[in-house]
């Protein structure tokens, strides 16, 4: 049926886009100076450098170089990170865990608060709560994350001392094992309540900072789709059946309004990813973002390229899933009506 065609089409384009992205990344590595910069490390001898040059066929035309670079990537060779003094692929998993924890926490906050706020505002259209929600939404879209983080730090860390920086208290952190790389989960698995609290305590400020903009975005989308649904005939028909307003809202309007809101989640994910760079710098969070920021400042090309590649593929994948979910949920879309 139509959903299947749609999914197939998207799936077929996906590899194309990934290849396209890799070409851009490859182009960037070539622009950035020495072509094998990403593989070099300080300890290499001139002989090893020459060997590298040969391995990656630097004398051959660009497309050939591209091919060898890609095969390197697929083999897991993403180069050497000057910042971390280790191969990229080795350092990646640890940092990934930290960033994912932050992003997911922020995402949960954003989705729950955003949907709640949006529903609240949409049901009270053009009254005070709605206007306040609008102000919140616009401020969220205009908020420089780095500034918001600093302001929060100044208030809650410097002056009030309620929250810490960093990801954890090293003593508490060191006490438990870290199978998943996600502090909160590890704490649960180790049944260590204190570690769990420690994790949450450190997670609070960064997650709020990161989630602010996304909350505003989701709230705005939710509000406008709720208002749209409330104007539809079936809502009046539901009222005509004698249903109390809360049921009309919950079972009819809100449920249907959630569907278009799903589309914003894909976008939000992109924002969350981007935000982690800045948030991790300011809160000294040991994740991918901070690693990337250091890499940028110290010319660590391997990290930069790996990061771009990773985030793009992730972004593409998430968007694909979201679009397919949306097509599945909204039968109206499927029928093209």
């Amino acid at each position: 049926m139509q959903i299947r065609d749609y999914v197939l089409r998207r799936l077929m384009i996906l590899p194309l886009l990934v290849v396209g992205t890799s070409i851009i990344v490859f182009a960037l590595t070539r622009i950035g100076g020495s072509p094998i910069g990403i593989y070099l490390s300080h300890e290499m001898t001139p002989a090893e450098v020459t060997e590298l040059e040969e391995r990656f066929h630097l004398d051959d035309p660009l497309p050939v170089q591209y091919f060898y670079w890609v095969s390197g990537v697929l083999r897991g060779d993403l180069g050497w990170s000057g910042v971390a003094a280790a191969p990229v692929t080795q350092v990646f998993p640890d940092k990934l865990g930290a960033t994912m924890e932050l992003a997911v926490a922020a995402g949960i906050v954003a989705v729950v608060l955003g949907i709640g706020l949006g529903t609240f505002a949409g049901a009270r259209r053009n009254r005070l709560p709605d206007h306040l929600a609008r102000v919140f939404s616009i401020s969220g879209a205009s908020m420089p994350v780095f500034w918001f983080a600093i302001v929060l730090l100044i208030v809650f860390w410097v002056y009030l001392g309620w929250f810490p920086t960093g990801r954890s208290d090293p003593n508490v952190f060191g006490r438990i094992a870290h199978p998943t790389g996600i502090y909160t989960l590890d704490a649960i698995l180790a049944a260590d309540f204190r570690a769990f609290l420690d994790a949450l305590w450190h997670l609070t400020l960064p997650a709020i900072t990161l989630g602010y903009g996304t909350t505003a975005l989701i709230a705005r989308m939710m509000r406008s789709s709720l208002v749209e649904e409330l104007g539809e005939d079936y809502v009046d028909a539901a009222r005509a059946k004698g249903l109390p307003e809360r049921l009309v809202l919950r079972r009819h309007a809100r449920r249907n309004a959630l569907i278009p809101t799903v589309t914003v989640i894909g976008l939000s994910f992109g924002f969350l990813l981007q935000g982690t760079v800045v948030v991790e710098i300011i809160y000294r969070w040991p994740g991918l973002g901070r690693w990337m920021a250091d890499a940028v400042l110290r010319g660590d090309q391997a990290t930069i390229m790996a990061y771009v590649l990773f985030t793009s593929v992730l972004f593409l994948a998430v968007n694909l899933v979201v679009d397919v979910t949306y097509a599945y949920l909204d039968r109206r879309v499927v029928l093209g009506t």
Partner: protein
Amino acid sequence: MVDVVVPPVRISVGSRLAVRLRRFGEVAREVLRNPATVVGLFVIVAMIGMALLAPVLTEANTPDPYQMPRDWGALNEPPGTPGFPLGTTSHGGDVLYGVIWGSRTSLRLSLIVVGATVTIGLIIGSLAGFLGGKVDEILMRVVDVFLSIPELIFALAIAAVLGPSFRNIILALAVVFWVKYARLIRGQIIHVKGNDYVDAARVIGDSRFSIYRRDVLPNSITPIIVQATLDMGHIVLVGATLSFIGLSEAGLAEWGVLVSDGQAGISAGRWWASTFPGAMVFLWALAFNLVGDGLRDVLDPRTEKR
């Protein structure tokens, strides 16, 4: 009851302009009806005024006014110290100076980038729309690829690879942000191409270009204006973020750089060097967002029923 037949009327160029002007006046009035938009407009005017009058309002003590002044005798002064209403940085730079010249830097940045991206986007989008076929396919795939990389990260990578400088930030942003405009104009062309009107016009002998000029461009102007207004704010936001991360020149009188420089003093309680410049970024983006939203409500409304 007889049907009145209206003979076709040739509208002369002069009166068409008059119609356009009148419509512009109506739109302007409608836009100004929204208080939020008016506030945004005020802030924008204030900021642009500040930017343009910067040389008059402040005094630099370095040869390049775009560099922050250095006063080794007044390091880390808090706000309220005589001569430094907003305090000084760790290099003795007047925060107020940074705030004012920062608006000039931001204005330069946003104007150049938005100008460049609109132009590039228009060209590429028009090519794709007009030539259609393979060219269109290829160009749109390129657009899709560009859109698969999150904006900030893309700009970050480009600026990093090119080397830290203000000029490279402009370049990086231009490379990343043209896509929306390309899509907009291509969409408009495709839409017009589908109109029967076009076939009729071709029969009369109108060239493709005049159709473009008469139908595609005017209809695309409104979404482009809305997008450009929003981008004026957004570009400064992303630009400041890039500067904050460190991709700009040290000591530049730019809001992002100032926030970054002021970071070190936070744990010691020196909040002013980061807070004021950062607030300006927020205000700038907020103002343009308010106006952009207001414009969008008027020019491209989604009718809200009952």
